[in-house]
């Protein structure tokens, strides 16, 4: 009896090191290539750290400059927020609508529709931006040709030099095209986790499809919407590839491009900090963006929680 207890505990002892061995590769790489550079960025943000110069400690001057006198930074922040405030609701509406149409086991070609609609999501953003700038091209773009044909424009316009609301529309449409399928997929997965009994009961009560959609499906998908909003806020505030490619496709001087509505925070970071070797300022900028993301995420969380609570009370 005593002996078996001994072997058991020595067996346990030999096991004790294993979870750490299995965790080590991930933890070590995470610490050395994410935690360390993140903290180092913070350290750098307190320096005037320009490539080719000796770094000079300047305290929080970078942050002060960023928040009080860098109007282009604030412009890029507002560009990014405008983009986000249109893209996320549009993606939710389109994605939810497509998912509702697809959520029907007997629908023909269901799998095909599903795959075809999520293909844009897996496509390289760089490629998407180039394809779209051709589709929107002044002379040969399909979209211009179509708009002229149905009489909205008299002649094709150059979207990239057009008034800024048109540039925003172009970017929003492009991102909507790319993401709607992803939202659709997530909503579909959410719908299939709703119990069929709920729908059955509603149908027995004679509820119409539209009523079922708004009174049952949408509220029950609250958590999914919540997940989508939070992850998209984090992602959209950091968006760079698509607006940058559209911007660079123009081949304009950087002063001119600073005024563009395509100048999102990360594009500004790349063009005005990284490319110019202003690393300390860039670090301060990314930290500020991170703070904005954090605040906004909590803000979103707060609103959703509050509204969710009200719903439950009703």
């Amino acid at each position, binding site marked *: 009896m005593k002996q078996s207890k001994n072997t058991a505990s020595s067996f346990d002892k030999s096991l004790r090191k294993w979870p750490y061995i299995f965790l080590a*590769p991930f933890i070590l790489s995470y610490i050395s290539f994410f935690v*360390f*550079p993140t903290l180092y960025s913070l350290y750098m943000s307190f320096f005037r750290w320009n490539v080719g110069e000796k770094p000079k400690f300047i305290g929080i001057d970078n942050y002060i400059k960023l928040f009080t006198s860098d109007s282009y930074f604030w412009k890029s922040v507002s560009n990014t927020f405008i983009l986000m405030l249109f893209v996320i609701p549009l993606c939710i509406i389109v994605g939810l609508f497509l998912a509702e149409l697809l959520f029907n086991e007997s629908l023909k070609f269901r799998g095909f529709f599903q795959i075809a609609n*999520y293909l844009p999501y897996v496509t*390289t953003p760089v490629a998407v931006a180039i394809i779209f700038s051709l589709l929107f091209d002044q002379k040969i773009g399909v979209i211009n040709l179509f708009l002229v044909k149905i009489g909205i424009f008299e002649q094709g316009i150059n979207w990239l030099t057009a008034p800024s609301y048109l540039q925003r529309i172009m970017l929003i449409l492009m991102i909507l095209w790319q993401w709607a399928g992803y939202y659709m997929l997530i909503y579909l997965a*959410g719908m299939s986790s709703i119990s069929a009994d709920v729908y059955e009961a509603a149908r027995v009560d004679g509820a119409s499809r539209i009523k079922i959609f708004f009174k049952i499906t949408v509220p029950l998908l609250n958590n999914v919407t919540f*997940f989508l909003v*939070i992850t998209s806020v984090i992602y959209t505030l950091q968006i760079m590839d698509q607006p940058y490619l559209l911007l660079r496709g123009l081949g304009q001087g950087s002063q001119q491009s600073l005024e563009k509505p395509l100048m999102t925070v990360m594009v500004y970071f790349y063009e005005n900090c990284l490319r110019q070797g202003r690393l300390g300022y860039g670090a301060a900028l990314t930290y500020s963006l*991170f703070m904005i993301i954090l605040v906004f995420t909590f803000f979103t969380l707060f609103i959703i929680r509050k509204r969710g609570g009200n719903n439950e009370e009703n």
Partner: protein
Amino acid sequence: MKKIKISTILSMIILIAATIMAIFPFYMMTIMSTRTNQQIITKLYMLPGNQLINNAKMVFESGFLMFYLNSFYIAVSAAVIGVLFSAAAGFAIAKYTFKANRLMQNMILIIMSIPFGVSIVGFLIEMKNLGLSNTHLPMIISAMISPYGVFLFTQFAKDGFPTEIMESARIDGCNEMTIFYKMFLPFTRSAAVTLFLMIFMYSWNNFLTPLVFINKQSMYTIPLGIFALGNQYRQEYGARMFALTLATIPILIIFAVNSKSLIRGLTSGAVKG
């Protein structure tokens, strides 16, 4: 009865319209890649032409094949390493009791939501000091670290990999490493496929990291190559479109074929159970 039919037809029409919109840009891209420049800028063609070979020649002369190979080996290395690291960590968290276990589970959820951008300036200096700028390692490293993957494997291991199997294997004299390789990895194969595809996609599409680290043309990845090629051959629409076709179509096929795994990966964070 008839009313149901009409709504089915209507939803079919809307779905077809949405699908056409989703696929149309890919179609145009493919058509343009078979046309001459002159044709593209004068008229809207909806059917393929015969310039594919010429466009292909121009693209391959620019070293595009090299970009392809670079992207491919970077994405595969990052995905393989990422899957192994995440699987091991998930295995440890789900299947062993140790002091920091709870802490680790909560940590993973928190670090999953920290944006990558905040580390980039420090990462740049770190890689430079390690002498790794102008190598492909920064790209492999930044893609392979996947807290989400750890989360995925933890979930899979909890639900799908019975602890009794491990115990009987231990009695048979297997050591823990053997259990991990011979039993856990095959058992959680579907999580591995999912994560592999997700890291592959991230790495293949990543633009900022190569833009920052690579300035030698022979080391370009696809997104960087497309970008540079765009500046070099600004007016060569046909060739540019062929390059894009080459860059996107194979990936679209891989993902269409494996769509089940990818969908599971994309949705498992959003929908519990």
